[in-house]
């Protein structure tokens, strides 16, 4: 019994720098079953219509990380994105290369910057020769210690997170979600002896560039949740050396501010984040805000029920103690 098919419209980004002066979108219409993966459709286009359509692909089972691309503007693995829901959502299927990486041809992007950031976090166990590994035996690791990796071992380095990340777009020096999730994986590894050094290096090394928009977590096909691991790294970095960067001072200042009065003192937060000299730099902006909102300079009043807020803080501090 043949399965019901739908007529699927594809618009595929095409660009060959050797021949084309500008990219174009080629249209293809295929009759396909709704659960057909986008990758299968693209391979059919290659086999039956245009063998020059260029993309990376290999395993077709979401484990090699080759076929990340944008499907209807979302960074996805083409192999596990079914056409049915995409057609329902968008009426057609627009396939484009990943963002934040230069296009080499069609859907193939230059991943050199992505891998360079990965290399730069020192993605290997750093060992202390004074503590050799057990001879002829594995290092013991409890199931609880394995759980601390969270889902980071599932990362297939597909770069969907790197493509989705606005901080990568704004600051090419930002390591990106994958590299930071990988860093987390080493910082919680009981075999690694450089946890402290890794955390000291990353606080000024881009950790606070993360915008906490969680687009990486939304894009990740393996549920690695990079944004949550970046949050964990931020907490661990502050615990390791205190708040040394504007980003971490902002976070700590925010927390202290609310604990004191239940409301944010914005002027105080600027001082906490940037210091007195930093405040001088932001003076122009401060004056503009003051004109519109003169109360900015006044410390906010303490809110009613502040003791309840403080109870929440105490409870949270208590849980953190338990966790550590």
């Amino acid at each position, binding site marked *: 019994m043949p399965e019901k098919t739908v007529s699927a419209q594809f618009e595929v980004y095409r660009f060959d720098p050797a021949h084309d002066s500008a990219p174009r979108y080629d249209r293809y219409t295929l009759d396909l079953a709704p659960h057909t993966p986008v990758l299968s459709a693209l391979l059919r286009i290659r086999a039956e219509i245009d063998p020059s359509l260029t993309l990376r692909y290999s395993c*077709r*089972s979401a484990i090699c990380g080759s076929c990340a691309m944008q499907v209807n503007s979302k960074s996805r693995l083409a192999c596990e994105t079914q056409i049915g829901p995409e057609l329902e959502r968008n009426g057609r299927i627009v396939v484009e290369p990943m963002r934040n990486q230069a296009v*080499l041809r069609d859907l193939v992007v230059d991943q050199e910057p992505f891998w360079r950031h990965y290399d730069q976090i020192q993605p290997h166990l750093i060992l202390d020769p004074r503590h050799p590994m057990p001879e002829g035996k594995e290092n013991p690791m409890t199931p609880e210690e394995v759980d601390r990796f969270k889902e980071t071992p599932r990362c297939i380095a597909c770069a969907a997170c790197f493509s989705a990340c606005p901080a990568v777009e704004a600051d090419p020096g930002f390591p990106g979600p994958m590299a930071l999730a990988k860093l987390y994986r080493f910082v919680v590894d009981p075999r690694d002896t450089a946890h402290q050094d890794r955390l000291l290096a990353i606080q000024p090394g881009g950790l606070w560039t993360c915008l906490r928009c969680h687009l990486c977590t939304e894009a990740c096909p393996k549920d690695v949740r990079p944004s949550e691991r970046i949050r964990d790294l931020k907490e661990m970095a502050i615990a390791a050396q205190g708040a040394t960067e504007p980003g971490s001072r902002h976070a700590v200042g925010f927390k202290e501010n609310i604990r004191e009065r239940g409301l944010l003192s914005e002027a105080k937060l600027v001082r906490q984040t940037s210091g007195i000299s930093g405040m001088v730099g932001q003076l122009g902006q401060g004056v503009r805000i003051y004109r519109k909102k003169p109360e900015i300079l006044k410390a906010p009043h303490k809110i009613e029920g502040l003791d309840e807020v403080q109870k929440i803080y105490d409870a949270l501090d208590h849980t953190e103690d338990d966790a550590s």
Partner: protein
Amino acid sequence: MVGAGLAGQRAALAAIQAGRDVAVVSKLHPLRSHSGAAQGGINAALGKEDSVDTHIYDTVKGSDYLGDQDAIEFFCREAGPTVVEMEHFGTIFSRGPDGSLARRAFGGAGFPRTIYAADRTGLALLQGLWERLGTERFTLYEEWDLTDLVVREGRVQGIVAFDRKHGDFEEIATSSVVLATGPFGRVYGRTTNAHSCTGDGVAAAYDVGAFLKDMEFVQFHPTLLLESGILITEGARGEGGILKNALGERFMSRYAPHVLELASRDVVSRAIVTEVAEGRGFPGPYGGYVHLELMHLGREKVESRLQEIVDYSRNFAGIDPVTEPIPVYPGQHYMMGGIGTNIRGETNIPGLFAAGEAACVSIHGANRLGGNSLLETLVFGKEAGIAAAAHAKTAARTEMTSADLDAAVAPLRAWSSRKDGEDPSTLRTEMQQTMEKYVGIYRTEADLLEGVKRIRAVKARFDRVQVVDQSKVYNLNLTDALETGHMLELAEAIVVGAYARTESRGAHSRADYPKRDDAHWMKHTMAAKSPAGPILSYTPVTYTRWEPKERVY
């Protein structure tokens, strides 16, 4: 090193540690290698109740007595140290409550000895090894296709490869080459193998006179997700998953009454094919199938230990294995055959080495046990790296010339300059359909003869293959043609070997010769390339302590 999966990376590490200058050539970024798709685990007899001897015996029996016992003994002795080394390199394995490496049961094994990392053991090992290798100095040529080996004066002089990104053919002069290019499962249509598993290194070795060994032994995994052919790990049965036919019978009781679903893979695959052929399968648009049930294991166990399987079922078949059965059918999974090597990874050509699934040592013989292939990549990758490094140290200077490059490249340029010709994708599909139909799980003389005829017809058409894409950058159309040409040679070696072997042993099941025939066939097939097709010869199997017995599970 050509190929950068587990075997190629381990060979590279060994050769670097031996002080040699190493280049790694791979058509994929190393972390995208097909080794990463291995799910279930890696065998090592680390349990107190288990022993290396039992692992050896299980492997010998699993091989249906075609494995070389000296190689198997070496292999199983290296298992423990190899797994421990990978743990020290940083691999994140699953753990037992006492903090030791967790183990699960696998088919054909006397004890639970399969060490694992959830159901993504290959990925965990690939990450661990790549991270370790990353601390060493070597040159990586990423996304380069191997086109030719250059052998002159009876020894290796170097390789020719195609740099996809820049569209240039390049030569690399070297006295030692390790081929670790993995399998060639894409000669079949229904396969768990990645699209990139096209046997480029195996075909290149065959082309310069290396023997291909035991090519007719093709493992069909019992449980591929219907339609997509995605692998559902044997670990799913190891964790307690059961197989049922359309009558609701747990049919394995008829084929392997003692171990049921945990019989060896060839046994379970044949059982499923028989059930469907005899009308007890479920019908469907993609052919008959059976059910793999995990529901009785409970949500917690299924979701924690078989996480990827849950995702595959949901994303590729719209099935939730926590509440529904998974539709499965057997398909090509593993090539026992490959480039013939000894324990040190040496081929019959000085300077040419092979390891991993591209090679045939042989430890798997007529049928590989689950959990032994990841181990093979690491054990024999290391050996091949050591041997290649030793050879490079003493070998005479290589002599690659521009004439070598021109000779290798000239036919490929002709593909692109043709005004009309055969489309590589069409030829590939016809080859896959032929292998599926005539060289499948059950084989007969008539089918195999038809298979030889059809593969040769496709091969003849390949002489007129055309590459229409004229771009220099990432010309995948050229890669298509290269790979198809490679696979056609290997498909022919498989079918000719299968036709000649008039017995049933392990994964090679001749419906017309249903019994194992030790008197005539306890020997390895060796295929040598000739213009008229493979020329077969045979070499004896090495025995140490285990006499052949009937294989019952």
